[in-house]
């Protein structure tokens, strides 16, 4: 039976019709193209009237295939597929030609645009004739979820899911949850005590019956697909038996070894070799740092073991592995800060009184190494003047092109704290002031009134080389004040560098492990930057917080809650539909060469040792076609993108070039002469 194709050309208002002679294209398709029995043009195909047009024609004209020449399939492929299935036609028997994005918007000449539209429609008709009926499959969703990262975004996600009655595993790499927020002193613009608002949520996590907290642990391996992930987690040895430890802290008190704390105290404070990152740490159990521990170094000491009242120290403890099954995974792995040593002219690491923003947070924090006193590196002197340099590693194409989003507000917060605690003069050197959200601009005005000085300009240099009287013993800021167009030298006692927020250094590997991609900079890529910011291209994997891009606490919390809502939607529905546009390995043709094994961006390909062939997990496959192209034996086929379909489309596109079925001979040869 000959296929009956309906062709529909959308005007898209004047978007397409303004450049393409849509009536002409539609009439031409109806007269010239084989198998086309209906060809229409309509002002807005995506409107309900436009869709009804298709539905009526399928019923009345017996259409077996549909071609819609309109916008990009990204926008309305679902719409027209749905129209087809409403009328009882398999939705995959519909093909779109992008006459807007690929023709009218990008073609100057109207004649050429009309000709190109004809070619696109011809290609789509040739292709749709070879389409096959495809059916989506349904898989159940495991109600357990995994949250990776125990900062404020991850905590929020875990609590939202757990409070809804669903079990959650929360994995944190560090010994305690809390993330960067636990390091901060105050939050902007309300100046709430950061720890005071965070720790209640932390203890909720630790006591929640639906949350299994796996701190000091890392995800080793992820397999499976949406609704049915299998995850292996490595629980790193703490050398403390959690069941026996009461968290009394005697071991920490008795430990004779003090080391610089480069993580929680940002390198300006100390901790013991057996330690808790901070007093309110969750979980409360300490951990032994084997690199600095005297026993692990020399085999003697064991002070912690001797004094532990419950015999909870175990030097023989080994890493353990936990296998869990979850339906959805939320990554909230956070950010890192820029290494200020990469800008040597700012003197960090060379000039003692140049601090990073994270160091300053610890300096201000009442539980920090100076008990909240703002002091110079000598630990006794209070600064009389402080410079705050913005955009250190941000908005700088040598390092990070992006704006780190939080630093303007942090800088204002620092200015306020310095003025409040020391009365010192505070100078801000900014690129642009960006206090963008609720009550932020007001906070900026508050600082203007408090007397903080603002100089617009990127600092050239921080130096201790005095040139003028009054500069001796000071750090001098050399800067062009771009508002007055003059070079200035401003001597200060202390400099704070507002370091950029950067992706975690292992973000790409983590992304690969979970089958999601990163931007060029290394932030996890969301499914849609506007309309789907917490989902990823891998179904069942969500992202929340600063791992997706720099953001402040309220934005991170919102994303955590949003991701939880998305996961809950999936859990409540109980099952998900899997797109049938997937690749299949034909076992009889697969020689098990394993070329495809590392290529799949979604980890959908496994090698079956005993059969010596590779297989594709169709629930994981996104139909991207990478493996189809790479398979040297052509043992992999991609549904909806078969060679025949693609060649037919090309042949259709070249309708005015190609004669007959084959291509023209390369060069005409003379007739054969008898031997």
């Amino acid at each position: 039976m000959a296929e009956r194709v309906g062709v529909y050309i959308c005007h898209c208002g004047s978007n397409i019709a303004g450049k393409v002679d849509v009536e002409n294209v539609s009439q031409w398709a109806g007269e010239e193209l084989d198998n086309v029995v209906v060809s229409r043009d309509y002002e807005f195909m995506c409107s309900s009237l436009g869709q009804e047009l298709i539905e009526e024609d399928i019923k009345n004209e017996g259409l077996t295939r549909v071609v819609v020449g309109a916008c990009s399939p990204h926008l309305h492929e679902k719409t027209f597929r749905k129209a087809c299935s409403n009328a009882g036609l398999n939705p995959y028997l519909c093909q779109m030609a992008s006459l807007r994005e690929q023709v009218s918007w990008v073609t100057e000449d109207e004649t050429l645009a009309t000709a190109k539209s004809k070619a696109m429609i011809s290609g789509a008709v040739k292709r749709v004739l070879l389409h096959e009926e495809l059916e989506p499959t349904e898989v159940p969703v495991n109600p357990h979820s995994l949250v990776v990262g125990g900062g404020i975004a991850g905590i929020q996600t875990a609590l939202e899911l757990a409070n809804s009655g669903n079990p959650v595993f929360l994995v944190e790499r560090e010994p305690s949850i809390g993330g960067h927020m636990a390091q901060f002193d105050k939050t902007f613009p309300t100046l709430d005590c950061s720890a005071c608002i965070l720790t209640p949520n932390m203890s909720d996590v630790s006591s929640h019956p639906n949350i299994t907290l796996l701190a000091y642990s890392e995800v080793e391996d992820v397999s499976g697909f949406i609704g049915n992930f299998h995850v292996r987690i490595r629980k790193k040895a703490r050398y403390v038996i959690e069941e026996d430890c009461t968290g009394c802290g005697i071991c920490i008190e008795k430990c004779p070894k003090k080391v610089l704390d480069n993580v929680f105290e940002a390198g300006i404070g100390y901790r013991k070799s057996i330690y808790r990152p901070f007093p309110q740490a969750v979980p409360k159990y300490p951990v032994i740092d084997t690199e600095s521990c005297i026993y692990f170094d020399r085999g003697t000491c064991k002070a912690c073991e001797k004094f532990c009242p419950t015999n909870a120290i175990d030097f023989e403890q080994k890493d353990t592995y936990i296998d869990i099954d979850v339906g959805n995974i939320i990554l909230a792995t956070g950010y890192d800060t820029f290494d200020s040593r990469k800008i040597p002219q700012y003197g960090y690491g060379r000039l003692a009184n140049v601090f990073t923003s994270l160091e300053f947070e610890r300096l201000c924090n009442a539980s920090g190494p100076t008990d909240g006193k703002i002091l110079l590196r000598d630990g006794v002197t209070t600064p009389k003047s402080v410079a705050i340099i913005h955009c250190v590693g941000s908005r700088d194409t040598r390092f990070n092109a992006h704006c780190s989003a939080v630093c303007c507000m942090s800088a204002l917060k620092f200015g306020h704290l310095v003025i409040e605690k020391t009365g010192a003069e505070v100078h801000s050197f900014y690129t642009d002031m960006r206090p963008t959200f609720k009550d932020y601009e007001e906070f900026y005005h508050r600082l203007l009134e408090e007397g903080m000085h603002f100089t617009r300009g990127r600092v050239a240099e921080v130096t201790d080389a005095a040139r003028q009287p009054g500069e001796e013993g000071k750090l001098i800021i050399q800067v062009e004040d771009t508002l007055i167009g003059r070079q200035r030298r401003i001597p200060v006692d202390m400099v704070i560098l507002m370091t950029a927020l950067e992706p975690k250094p292992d973000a790409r590997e983590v992304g690969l492990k979970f089958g999601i991609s990163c931007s060029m900079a290394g932030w996890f890529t969301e499914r849609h930057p506007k309309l789907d910011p917490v989902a990823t291209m891998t179904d069942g994997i969500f992202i929340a917080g600063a791992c997706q891009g720099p953001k402040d606490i309220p934005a991170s919390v919102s994303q955590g809650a949003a991701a939880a809502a998305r996961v809950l939607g999936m859990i409540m529905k109980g099952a998900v539909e899997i797109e049938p546009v997937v690749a299949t390995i034909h076992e009889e043709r697969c020689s098990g060469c394993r070329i495809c094994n590392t290529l799949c961006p979604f980890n959908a390909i496994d090698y079956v040792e005993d059969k010596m062939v590779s297989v594709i997990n169709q629930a994981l496959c996104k139909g991207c076609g990478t493996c189809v192209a790479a398979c040297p034996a052509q043992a992999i086929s991609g549904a909806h993108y078969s060679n025949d379909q693609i060649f037919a489309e090309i042949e259709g596109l070249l309708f005015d070039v190609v004669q007959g079925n084959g291509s023209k001979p390369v060069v005409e040869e003379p007739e054969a002469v008898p031997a």
Partner: protein
Amino acid sequence: MSEKGVLALYWAASCGGCEIAVLGINEKILDVAAAFDIVFWPCVLDGKVRDIEKMDDKSIDLCFFNGAIRTSEQEYMARLMRQKSKVLVAFGSCAQEGCIPGLANATTKEAIFQTSYHDTPSTVNPDGIRPQTETEVAEGTLYLPFFYETVKTLGQTVDVDYYLPGCPPEPERIWDAIVAILENKLPAPGSVIGAETTVCDECPRTRDEKKIKEFKRTWEIIPDSDICLLEQGLVCCGIATRAGCGALCPTVGSPCIGCYGPNEGVDDFGARMMTALASVIDSDDPEEIDRIIHEGIPDPIGTFYRFSLAHSELRRIALPANGGSDAKLETAESA
């Protein structure tokens, strides 16, 4: 076949290896002789084209035709054998894909003539004489076949019923094909008689995930005897090459060069090899990738299209008439 069947074997642009391969079935050739009357086999038996011309159409049951189509004589013979044969088998790589003769499509007829009749050190041709299709001598006119610009496969010249791959086909596979023909257990017309998977399937080496930092030439390393040669950096075409040889070369440490042609359903062997290798080069740095490819694969056509240039999507290098810039196209008259 109630009576004995009728068999013909012919060779066009080929090396003669296919003929030897037929004899490689050893004493089974007697079984072939028992089953068939061999009416035409220029390599082995005396025979005349005019005798074939006189036969009724379709009076030959089976014709094994090896060799590519390079000259007008070969094309004439291809058409003749097609006309006279019920089943025409493109026998071996030259007939199927063009093979080594097809590599001539990487140059031009003029360049070939220039080299053969003028430039080679052993050529003495002070008058610059070139062969002509017609030459008048005292006794009359002498004819030579016309030498085509482009080498074609048998399938590009006439309809072919079956393809038997290999350079040359392995004797066991030839025997399998003969048995299949005798027992009438043939696949659909137009198919390749052979395996549906690739050489890796028969290769005893252990295989792992592939990540290639550097391609090596065979003289650069002594390969480990157990590990996949491709993983050791040797460009082994076994991943893309139809099984059937028993993985003879990789088994003894020499990378597969692709003589058994592409796997079932593949049109362009070289394109398959290139997309496969491109996808496992272990680098994200465009400059490093360029270096890996240029240093490791100095001869891409010879590496990826050694056997299949004439059959590939591109078939040959571009000629000036078709947009090429370097090549000079000569006319039929100047030949």
